[in-house]
């Protein structure tokens, strides 16, 4: 479904590679975790997958469509959940979701039903008409997620979807994401919560200094590295504890 062919990225005014010759194949139905420390290159890959800016070299294909030349086709089949709470705080949850749904091309009953359904799933129905600025962090995260899945995307790109919220809310979000995946949506997910990634992802790639240092199924990777869990393996591979 997704092919990254030797992609590299050097930002303007920088001499260092943010992403250096990365190649990946991600299959349909996968929950793929891009893991790494802050500044490892996860968000750069994420942004290039969304078509926000092109790689300096290499190609990215989603469903055999080139991100470089066919981005408008790709945008119709992807859903994006940014790390920030990308919502309008003075609008209600319903107004926010209605706007983003419409921007994805949903209309009429399809849009209304999708909003009602998602709010129900995430337990936010009774807060639907409240302004986002009155929401707690966890509630905002959930609306942020719903805004990216209203149109039932084939591929969901999540950039740290549960960052900065309590463990309970995080667990709830991950649980719902699992369900979304089971309904046929492939997921690419960046995170630095390794324990969570170990449970959630079907496959992971650990990125360090713009390069993939290991890739595979989490359990297999942990086993082959003779570690007890993903976190231990991560420290062993990157030698970096502080930024995870």
């Amino acid at each position: 479904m997704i092919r990254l062919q030797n992609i590299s990225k050097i930002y303007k005014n920088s001499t260092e590679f943010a992403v250096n010759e990365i190649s990946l194949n991600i299959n349909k139905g996968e929950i793929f975790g891009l893991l790494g420390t802050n500044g490892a290159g996860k968000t750069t890959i994420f942004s290039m997958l969304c078509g926000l800016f092109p790689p300096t070299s290499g190609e990215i294909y989603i469903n055999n469509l080139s991100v470089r030349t066919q981005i408008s086709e790709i945008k119709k089949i992807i859903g994006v959940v940014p790390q920030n709470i990308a919502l309008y705080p003075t609008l209600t949850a319903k107004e926010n979701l209605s706007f983003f749904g419409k921007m994805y091309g949903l209309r009429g009953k399809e849009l209304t039903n999708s909003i009602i359904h998602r709010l129900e799933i995430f337990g936010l129905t009774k807060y639907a008409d409240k302004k986002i600025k009155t929401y707690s962090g966890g509630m905002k995260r959930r609306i942020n997620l719903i805004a990216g899945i209203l149109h039932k995307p084939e591929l969901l790109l999540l950039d740290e979807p549960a960052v900065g919220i309590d463990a309970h809310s995080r667990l709830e979000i991950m649980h719902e994401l699992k369900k979304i995946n089971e309904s046929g949506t492939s997921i690419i997910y960046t995170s630095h919560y390794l324990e969570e990634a170990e449970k959630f992802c079907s496959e992971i790639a650990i990125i360090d200094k713009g390069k993939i240092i290991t890739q595979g199924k989490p359990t297999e990777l942990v086993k082959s590295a003779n570690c007890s869990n993903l976190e231990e393996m991560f420290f062993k591979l990157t030698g970096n504890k502080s930024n995870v």
Partner: protein
Amino acid sequence: MYKLKASVIKEFLVLIRDIPGLIILFIMPAAMIIVVTLVQDSTLKSLSDSKIKILYVDNDNDILSNSLKEGLLKSEIFDLDTSKVNYEQAKNEVAKGKYRMAIIIPEGAADTIRKNIKPVVENIFSAEQNQQTVNFKKLEIQILTDPTIKNTFKQTMISDLQKYTSKIETQILFKILAEQLEKMTGVKPDLLDKPIETITFKETFAFEKETSIKPNSTQHNVPAWTMFAMFFIVIPLAGNMIYERENGSFFRLLTMPGNYLTVLGSKTIVYLGITFLQFILMILAGIFVLPLFGLPVLNLGTHPFALLITALASGLAAVGYGILVGTIAETHEQAGVFGSVSVIILASLGGIWFPVYAMPAIMQKISIISPLNWGLESFYDIFLKNGTVSDILPEISALTSFFIFTILIAYFYEKAKRMKF
């Protein structure tokens, strides 16, 4: 179209829930029009309600000082205080800021004028061999001024004093002339107490077309401050764009199907609506509010369509500028400072505060780069010259082109910025 409509609704909701933003957009400009028009109008009405305090030290008490005093009192601009008796006292009072100005008439001032004029008159009537050499004595009237008063006011004041003294000199000349004639003929001529004023000035506005419009402070200020208010939309508009970038919703929009022009289009529609409402509010203030303060009622002229397209074209130019600033500025601080300062500069250049015709030649040439000047000229054509659509076409074209130009720059700048990442 569907996405544009959705985007317009979102922009509208975001805007109407931003109360401080709405205050900046509507209440402040309306307050500004009322305050500035009131201030300017009272200034133009020769400050009759707030007289300027002046000290008048008369060390002569003769025709010159008395006539001067009479003239100053008659002008009704000045509140004359004659209680201080000497130069030092007067200087202290002005230095303390109690008076804006002090006029000190030296002792023997009128006599000095007489002594200067008398030999001149006598020479006129005497034979060539009896001509006397005239040594004019200088008469110096001292004027002490508060350092804070503006030069223009000072110059006007001195010019008024010169006018009075010149009248009095003429009066003395007449008197001496009459005395000389009486001496020669034995008949006392019927002398006029005061010089006659046979020259008057009649002012008529030179309109190209028949109109009932009377240029006044309302006709000048309402369009000027409407333009200023419209361009101040740059602050909330740029702020809105930066906020969207900062909180990630702009990023989200970029990852969604659709064109960036849809985003810009929705902002243009909503904020153009706002500028139009500002325009309506200003017009209503000119018609209904300013007269409550004793100011003239705004006369809209007879070409409402020309007025409508001027408002729309000016609004478009203001929105285009706001979008450009919002695209280029990285932070709220940059947008706030650059936006407001640039609008103030463009307003100064455009003649909002000071008429372009009174600017130095170089500034007059520069002023044509200001879109506020184009809008203001167009409004003036309608409000002061009863202009038609064809009269304002050059300004309307310039404003619309400015909008297209700024939107294109914003569009390509945004695109280039992302590609250069």
